[in-house]
């Protein structure tokens, strides 16, 4: 069949919808929702990944559904870009769905039915966002996605914090959606035709295309979580059940990247370098802000959420560089930047999904989410600890895992700067690369903190009821472990065989920018990752891994062969101070202390230090986001002020009301005269 990938993807999306409905229909004992829905959803995801992969390598194809507006039936299209994101969605959703089938198993029937419904509607709407080929279907899918995820976030709606998080989330999502809607309004040529084909053909003036770009950037940025529109993200992601956090952080915010690429590269077209500079500046700010605030967190899921902000910043850096290069007429370098950004998108989906799942397993088994209460989990949850370590190393951009590859590609893009003619811009790009370097190192620091505090050391608050002296909880169940293993394998595959993905992304780049990587890059085999030319840069993760394992093993064997393997066990050295307790270990807050010291002005801190004579000394620290005070609260106050002023219009006096009518009448009559 000709339209296999598109039709197949459509079937998968419909299958998800069907699962959603079936989950709702059998609420009695929720057998379906409990045992079948999520595994079936995972299978569908696997199929979607395959179709997406096929779509990348097939020519673009379109179809219409007999639904939608008059004159505007739903248009669907599968092209390489969509195919890539479908693959991302499908493959990551597979792991998360398997995990979810274990995670949600103990929910009550009613809740489970609702979760099953919302979860699969969420998945289906994301698929439709990617498949949409007209503005209307796109918006419908986009907002359905927001709505279904909102309900998932508020699953535990009895907690006020979760309610307000959900509200904030939906509000910002809606504002962003309005901006996107207006962006489509700008692009459509007044012919009432909202298909993407028509929008592509619109031919805007530079002014209007810049307006469209700004609207799209704002609208999609709100969903992606770039500053200063990120405020919802660290609230909503921790509030949601962990598989949902993983979906949101792993996939949903990537649909915003999809939207950005689709609208800016494909629909508006004619990318200008000034746009790229804006994207770079925002991206750099987002990156640094995200990682610095992540370092300050002690709520594990919140910390991960801030890292999502950071990684969106990294993706934006790649996109921005790409736009700068394209704007200056260097599509090859532009394609490289785009590829780097998209590759990071995929990588982030995989490792952030993995990390959120790991956090979910911790939460599930210990009921803890505050790092300061954890410790020593590696002993009770060794398997989770292993998977989490892989995720942590991947997000810290350490070779040979996947996070490194995409950051490496981004650096390579920045190093193309000498081709630019504009001296200022040329010297700016390395600065953004410096930001990326800084963020990478800070991320590593943050994950040393997370891993060291949560999994290593000894349990901290042993007074905690959930924390028996020997440690907490139990390891994750089989399904949960399988889900994590799937994504952890993804980290390895993406890290070790980047060339095949590079070639795939090259097709995406060619389809969007008209030009791809150099021939030398394309001819390199699976072993060698060569972005431009072998003399310029190359990287072979497989060899890298083999050597590092080989050398490590060699060292081990040599030591064992020439010497002995004798080991004695003892208490840790107490420095001559025998009364140490596990509470004296470093806490998450303490770990961030140097950063607070160095970057003090960035944070809004409220600290309470114990006095020397305190009976029960406590240290408390509250870090707040300055954006609240600089942006959100002023806006809220302005709205409050305006509405209080407007409220004065209506003071209950009928005479005044009559006067309004009277004045309106007189005013209009004067106007008519």
């Amino acid at each position, binding site marked *: 069949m000709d339209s296999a990938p598109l039709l197949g993807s459509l079937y998968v999306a419909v299958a998800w919808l069907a699962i959603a409905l079936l989950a709702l229909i059998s609420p009695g004992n929720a057998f379906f929702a409990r045992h079948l829905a999520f595994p079936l959803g995972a299978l569908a995801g696997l199929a979607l990944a395959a179709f997406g992969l096929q779509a990348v390598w097939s020519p673009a194809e379109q179809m219409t559904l007999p639904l939608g507006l008059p004159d505007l039936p739903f248009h669907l299209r599968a092209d390489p870009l969509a195919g890539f994101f479908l693959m991302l969605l499908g493959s990551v959703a597979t792991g998360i769905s398997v995990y979810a089938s274990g995670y949600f198993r103990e929910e009550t029937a009613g809740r489970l039915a609702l979760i099953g419904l919302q979860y699969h509607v969420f998945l289906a709407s994301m698929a439709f966002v990617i498949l949409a080929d007209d503005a209307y279907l796109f918006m419908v899918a986009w907002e359905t996605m927001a709505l279904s995820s909102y309900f998932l976030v508020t699953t535990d709606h009895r907690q006020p914090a979760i309610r307000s998080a959900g509200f904030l989330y939906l*509000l910002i999502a809606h504002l962003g959606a309005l901006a996107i809607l207006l962006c489509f309004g*700008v692009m459509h040529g007044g012919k009432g035709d909202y298909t993407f084909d028509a929008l592509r053909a619109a031919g805007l003036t530079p002014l209007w295309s810049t307006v469209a770009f700004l609207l799209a950037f704002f609208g999609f940025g709100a969903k992606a979580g770039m500053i200063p529109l990120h405020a919802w993200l660290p609230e909503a992601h921790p509030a949601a059940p962990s598989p949902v956090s993983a979906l949101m952080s792993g996939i949903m915010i990537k649909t915003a990247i999809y939207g950005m690429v689709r609208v800016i590269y494909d629909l508006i077209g004619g990318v200008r370098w000034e746009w790229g500079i804006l994207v770079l500046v925002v991206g750099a700010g987002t990156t640094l802000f995200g990682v610095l605030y992540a370092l300050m967190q002690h709520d594990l899921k919140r910390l991960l959420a801030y890292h999502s902000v950071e990684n969106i910043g990294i993706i934006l850096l790649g996109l921005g560089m790409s736009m700068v290069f394209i704007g200056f007429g260097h599509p090859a370098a532009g394609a490289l930047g785009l590829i780097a950004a998209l590759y990071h998108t995929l990588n982030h989906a995989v490792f952030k999904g993995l990390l959120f799942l790991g956090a979910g397993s911790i939460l599930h088994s210990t009921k803890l989410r505050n790092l300061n209460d954890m410790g020593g989990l590696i002993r009770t949850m060794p398997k989770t600890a292993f998977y989490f370590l892989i995720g942590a190393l991947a997000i810290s951009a350490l070779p040979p895992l996947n996070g490194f590859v995409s950051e490496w590609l981004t650096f390579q893009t920045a190093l193309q700067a000498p081709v630019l003619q504009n001296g200022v811009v040329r010297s700016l790009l390395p600065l953004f690369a410096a930001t990326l370097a800084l963020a990478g190192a800070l991320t590593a620091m943050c994950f040393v903190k997370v891993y060291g505090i949560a999994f290593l050391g000894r349990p901290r608050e042993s007074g905690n009821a959930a924390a028996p002296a020997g440690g907490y909880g139990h390891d994750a169940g089989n399904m949960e472990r399988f889900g994590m293993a799937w994504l952890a394998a993804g980290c390895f595959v993406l890290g070790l065989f980047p060339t095949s993905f590079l070639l795939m992304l090259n097709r995406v780049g060619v389809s969007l920018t008209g030009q791809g990587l150099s021939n030398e890059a394309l001819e390199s085999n699976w072993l060698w990752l060569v972005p431009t030319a072998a003399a310029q840069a190359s990287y072979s993760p497989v060899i890298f891994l083999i050597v590092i394992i080989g050398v490590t093993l060699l060292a081990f064997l040599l030591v064992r062969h020439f010497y002995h393997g004798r080991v004695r066990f003892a208490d840790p050295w107490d420095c001559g101070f025998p009364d140490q307790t596990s509470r004296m270990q470093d806490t998450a807050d303490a770990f961030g202390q140097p950063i607070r010291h160095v970057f003090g002005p960035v944070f809004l801190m409220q600290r309470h230090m114990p006095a020397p004579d305190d009976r029960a000394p406590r240290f408390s620290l509250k870090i707040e986001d300055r954006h609240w005070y600089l942006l959100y609260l002023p806006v809220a106050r302005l709205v409050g002020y305006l509405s209080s002023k407007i*409220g004065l219009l209506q003071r209950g006096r009928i005479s005044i009301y009559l006067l309004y009518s009277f004045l*309106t009448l007189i005013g209009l009559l004067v106007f008519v005269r």
Partner: protein
Amino acid sequence: MEIALVLGIPLLGGLVLALVGHKRWAPEVNAAMSFATFCAAALLTAKVVADGPMVALEEQFFVDPFNVFLVALTAFVGFTTALFSRPYMRIEEHHGRVNSARLRLYHSMYQLFSFTMVLCLLSNNVGILWVALEGATLSTVLLVSLYRTPASLEAAWKYFILCSVGIAQALFGVILLYFAAEKVLGPGGTSLLWTHLYEVRHQLEPTVLSLAFVFLLVGFGTKVGLVPLHNWLPDAHAEGPTPVSAVLSGLLLNVALYAVVRSKVLVDGALDRNFSGNLMMGFGLLSVVVAAFFLSRQKDIKRMFAYSSVEHMGIMTFAFGMGGPVAAFAGLLHMTVHSLTKSAIFFTVGHASQKTGTQNMDEIRGLIESNPTIGWGLVLGSLAILGMPPFGVFTSEFMVLTTAMHEHSWATPFLLVALGVAFAAIFGKVQPMVFGATTARRLPHPPALIPVFVHLAIVLMLGVYIPPYLVDWYRQAARLIG
């Protein structure tokens, strides 16, 4: 024939219910009559869709796609509201807020109100249209004060005075229209017949018509609830019984807007410039913005949704003001989905406030826990009215916004701000009401929630799929008024 049925059934129903007095089965009769009206309206619709526009009874009545669509909508919402009011008013009676005399008044006036609505829509005579619209005020004013509380009396008084005065201005507009028409059509009965006016609209005197339009806009606009003429609206919605709020928002405002749009068509014919359109866009925009800011300070749940009606009437007025096939289509669609959604919201709101014994939003909590259907109905309805896809309200807002962006891009920042503020306001208030721990008690009668979900299902359907015949129908209507 069908016209006679559509008009006769509610009139008969009103008389019967008034004469017989309150009986135990009065709510059922009310619902049955409304159902019969709906059936007749469906017949009429089928006929018009098949045979095209027609006039009847010495041209005093006429039906075209525009008004038959509203007749069908009116009859449908009238019917579902009657279904809803059956348990609702029983619970009110159980709570001792109404007695049988007032129920008699309520049921008969409900039918008479339906009658005036249908009359207003079907009348070919602009004068009778005015009379019917004033009749609608008269028939609902006593319903607003049904509870005889100080607040409800105050609300009804304001409603009565403001609407009567407003509509008096419209009468002046009608006189001016007649004055202009007489020049062309000669004195006598035909000069006020819309079908005739429509044919000669290009020959009407522009000065007079522009003046007439001002009076008509102020007059009918008062009933539409355009800012700053809207002040009666929140009070009347908040203090009357909920079924009345539902029909006020769902039907009366639509019909008043219908009158404005009809006037606009004539004025546009007479004037070259887009005079009426600009005025309507201005009023629409003002209503949207002001109502959005009002929304964020509400404490009373019905009052809040009343302001939401002001906002949505503003959007429709803006859409019709823009004109053109897309915007007019969007306006008509918005009329449909707004009246369905808003009445559905009022149904849930009614039961919610009965369950919690208050209309104060700070005291309503945890509806999803205590009664999932009411809670989900409210939250889905609110999301729908806020323009969340895949509900149909989004469809029309999509068309309005994108058209506005293209043709009147200056207006879009205002719309954007207003929609954002409205979203924050309404959703920020609805969310705590549906989530969290509950404050509700049991109801003595099972609530009627089927209408809620029927309405929402239709709105949902219109969001993803508009049946072709409906599209045709809208298109024909849009052509008439675009």
